[in-house]
């Protein structure tokens, strides 16, 4: 019963999304263009002048693009699981309404993560199209690198939702973005290899989903063969998604059906 009704939750979210889709699709394309221009082309020209052999043997733009793709997916996932969740629980109480129907707590949690995952996929796909336009990777490789991005975004959506259902005060969420999401973007191998970080902090970067997602996306985008590490990263991301999803259930039950 839980899974088919999760699809109903997705259906409802899609209906809600329909009223803002234009703006969201536009941003989906605009963001990667701006970021790739500023960092990849602008900053990248300076970096390339300093590193004739390139980063991982490629230009900075090529190096950066899959990283940014994953970072964007990560941020999309995080924002899908943040204020929307607080609104649904506290302000609008629309989740209370859903749970008064045959939908169970499991069904609702799975549906919400599933929908977040679809949103991440949409944003990642537009990013991949921009990558193709910028010529940083072939169409196949660009689209292939979406897969780890979706995985990272889904894990983040689940993790952020698990956090947001516990949060009483939405200012806690701002802290979460400031001290978890932003640092994860800056220091997890998106903009530069984590080997540039001080030794003691590298293990922390290694634990973030972004690091593993970037490793995978870069491997795919640069057309490299998978390494042993790739399989570790993949396993890690899948496990993280499942664990975070599972962590939503109990606080959600306590909060919404006390």
């Amino acid at each position, binding site marked *: 019963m839980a899974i088919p*009704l999760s699809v109903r*939750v997705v259906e409802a979210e899609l209906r*809600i999304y329909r009223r803002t889709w234009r703006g969201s699709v536009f941003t989906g394309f605009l963001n990667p263009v701006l970021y790739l221009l500023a960092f990849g082309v602008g900053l990248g020209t300076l970096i390339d002048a300093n590193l004739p052999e390139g980063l991982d043997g490629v230009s900075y733009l090529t190096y950066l693009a899959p990283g940014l793709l994953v970072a964007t997916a990560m941020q999309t996932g995080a924002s899908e699981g943040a204020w929307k969740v607080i609104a649904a629980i506290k302000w609008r109480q*629309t989740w209370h309404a859903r749970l*008064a129907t*045959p939908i169970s707590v499991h069904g609702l949690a799975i549906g919400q993560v599933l929908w977040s995952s679809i949103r991440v996929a949409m944003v990642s796909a537009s990013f991949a199209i921009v990558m193709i336009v910028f010529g940083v990777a072939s169409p196949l490789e660009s689209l292939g690198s979406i897969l780890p991005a979706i995985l990272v975004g889904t894990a983040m959506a689940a993790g952020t939702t698990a956090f947001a259902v516990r949060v009483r005060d939405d200012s806690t969420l701002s802290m979460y973005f400031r001290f978890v999401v932003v640092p994860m973007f800056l220091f997890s191998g998106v903009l530069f290899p984590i080997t540039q970080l001080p030794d003691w902090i590298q293990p922390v970067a290694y634990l973030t989903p972004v690091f593993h997602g970037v490793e995978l996306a870069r491997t795919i985008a640069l057309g490299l063969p998978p390494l042993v590490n790739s399989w570790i990263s993949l396993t890690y991301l899948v496990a993280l998604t499942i664990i975070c999803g599972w962590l939503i259930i109990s606080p959600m039950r306590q909060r919404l059906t006390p």
Partner: protein
Amino acid sequence: MSNPLIKATGLTKRFGDFVAVDGIDFEVEQGETFGFLGPNGAGKTSTMRMISAVSPITEGSLSVLGLDPAKEGPRLRSRLGIVPQENNLDDELTVRDNLYMYGRYFDIAKSELNERIAELVEFVQLTEKIDAKVDALSGGMKRRVTIARGLINDPDLYILDEPTTGLDPQARHALWDRLYRLKQRGITLIITTHYMDEAEQLCDRLVVMDKGKIVAEGSPRQLIEIHTPRDVVELRFPIGVLETIGGQIRELSDRTEILADRALVYTDDPDRTVAIVHAYGLEPETVLERRSSLEDVFLRLTGRTLVD
């Protein structure tokens, strides 16, 4: 009548140390409109939520439509219509979309759903607002959308938590009219309210709750007969006067109530009571004779102290 739709025995709900519902027993029969009356914090909403299978019971037993809410929550909820205290509609969506989304949670097929939405919107008299955003509707209209939403799955049991709180008199009467129609169709209704007129208008039978317990049970008429004399004489005096003549007033009846500016004398013979008042030489500013109401019963049973 041997097979009640709802049967609760020793039903208890605790939140930590706080006892919200304290071992209550009640049964609701098929087709009746059953009320839970009580001041804020009496445990009405907690009871509703347990019946609605969105809050697990702490102790006792509860069967709703022959199902155990703990074990068969989704199956039970598929047969319930729920109107919560807060409308919790999606304000940014239209009336139609709200109802549509909700209906889909019950797995109702799209074609059937469109038909049903048209019927329900007509039933709550919002046909011309069907494509308006909920945000733009008045409080009474939003409530009617929520009433319609609760009927989307053609429920066997319709549960309304304070359906008319916060509405203006016109909107309240319009809603009562709709609920009365549902009642006539034979739908079993459960209503919580702290409006006595609402309970008198709609409920066949009700329980009065206070501090988690049931303190009285019966039809509105029965409750008035059992718990209070037939009539009330309200005597209004200038502030301060009652402090000195309170003793005399208390002699008028077994049951009197002295408030700051008026005295309520419960009596079966109001004319005689008024005659005695004048014989005593008391000169109230106004004298009002009226029938006892459910409100008198309610205040007697749950006290006049403000709860919050």
